[in-house]
């Protein structure tokens, strides 16, 4: 720690308004492009689920890592932007409800995953557009 206190005129009071960038991860964001049949219907249902705090689909936000439907049993691998996310149960509940309503789905398994960790790199272009409209600088 050798740096001296900066004169006040050089202060940058909002040093942390930017998201810290993360590495790009192969195969993510998963968006359901090319999905067919029930899988595609599940993706559609997921697109309709929005983040509780911002008007952006959780798919465009990059929270969904994988979707698969096997014999009526849907499995979703999803993450959260933040480990302390207060909407954890709410989001999972929304996802559960949305997928359960899809024709051809009888059961839903939601698997919360933390690796690779979410970063703003996982937001799709459409998602970035929505976040900008909302007033965020991404």
């Amino acid at each position: 720690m050798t740096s001296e206190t900066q004169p006040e005129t050089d202060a940058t009071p909002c040093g942390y308004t930017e998201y810290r960038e993360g590495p790009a991860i192969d195969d993510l964001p998963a968006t359901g492009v090319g999905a067919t049949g029930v899988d595609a219907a599940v993706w559609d249902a997921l697109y309709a689920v929005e983040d509780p705090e911002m008007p952006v689909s959780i798919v465009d936000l990059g929270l969904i890592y994988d979707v698969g439907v096997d014999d009526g049993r849907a499995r979703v691998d999803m993450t959260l932007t933040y480990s302390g996310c207060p909407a954890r149960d709410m989001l999972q509940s929304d996802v559960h409800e949305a997928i359960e309503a899809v024709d051809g789905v009888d059961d839903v398994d939601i698997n919360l995953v933390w690796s690779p960790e979410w970063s703003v790199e996982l937001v799709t272009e459409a998602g970035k557009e929505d976040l900008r409209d909302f007033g965020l600088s991404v």
Partner: protein
Amino acid sequence: MAATEIELTPDQRLALETELRTLADDEFVLAERYTEWQVHAPTLESDLALANIAQDELGHARLWYDLLEELGYDETDLLWERDPDTFRHATLSELPFPEGEWADAIVRSYLFDVAEGLRLESLEESAYPAIADRVGKIQREEGYHTEHAENWLERLATDDEGGDHLQAAVDRLFPHALALFVPTEPVPFGAETVSGDGAGSQYTDTDALPDAATVEETIVAEGYRTDSLATLGERWLDRVVPTLESHGLRTPVPADGEITDELVPDACGRNGRHTDDWDTLYADFTHTYRELGREDATMIMDRPE
């Protein structure tokens, strides 16, 4: 889920639970303390920052408690109805803040966050996949905590008065921070989490438990954590002592760097012995649960199946 698919021997399970309890309890209890600064921190920004750090720590605690839940516990077992003597956080987390001592919050956060960062590095390659999977997420958030503490440390150290407050906090907290590197005394398996003669049934009773040093050896030998606490403690000293000294602060570490047991408080938390302040804090955070006559953790909404 990964955890339930792995067959654990009783010794492995004990080692894993011990590491998870240590990680989770440190974070949970520290967050409980941090929240006491709500609306009392010196500026609005610092208030928000510390509140946010507290929320992060609660999130991290949950990530670790989740893994204990996968081993058969529920939230009631792990928090609301847990015997306070079975918490294993280091006493650094539980000490109350002397009234208005912001320097205490900063020094505590600094000592803790550096230690946590080192411990997380040592979990990156954990042989228990569900631990390794969580580390990156936590590290990304922890980086901000250390930065926050270091910035404030630097700011407070720029004048004599701030320096005096920091020194008092170092004197008070440093021994309790050393407790972070004391091997954790294992807790017997909750009998309800072990079916019949299932894995670990031999450890449902305190008398049969191996000692903390043996469990620590198992944690490292099994690769749940890849470095020993002794190694992590040395790395921590190499980092925090020079930094504190660069701010004109003295630590109780002798010139030869040798840490002896005398420097660590008798009640250090990891050994199951806590300060009286822990009883008060435990009574506080379980107060509403008891007052409302709860028998299980109440959710705002049902958890998805």
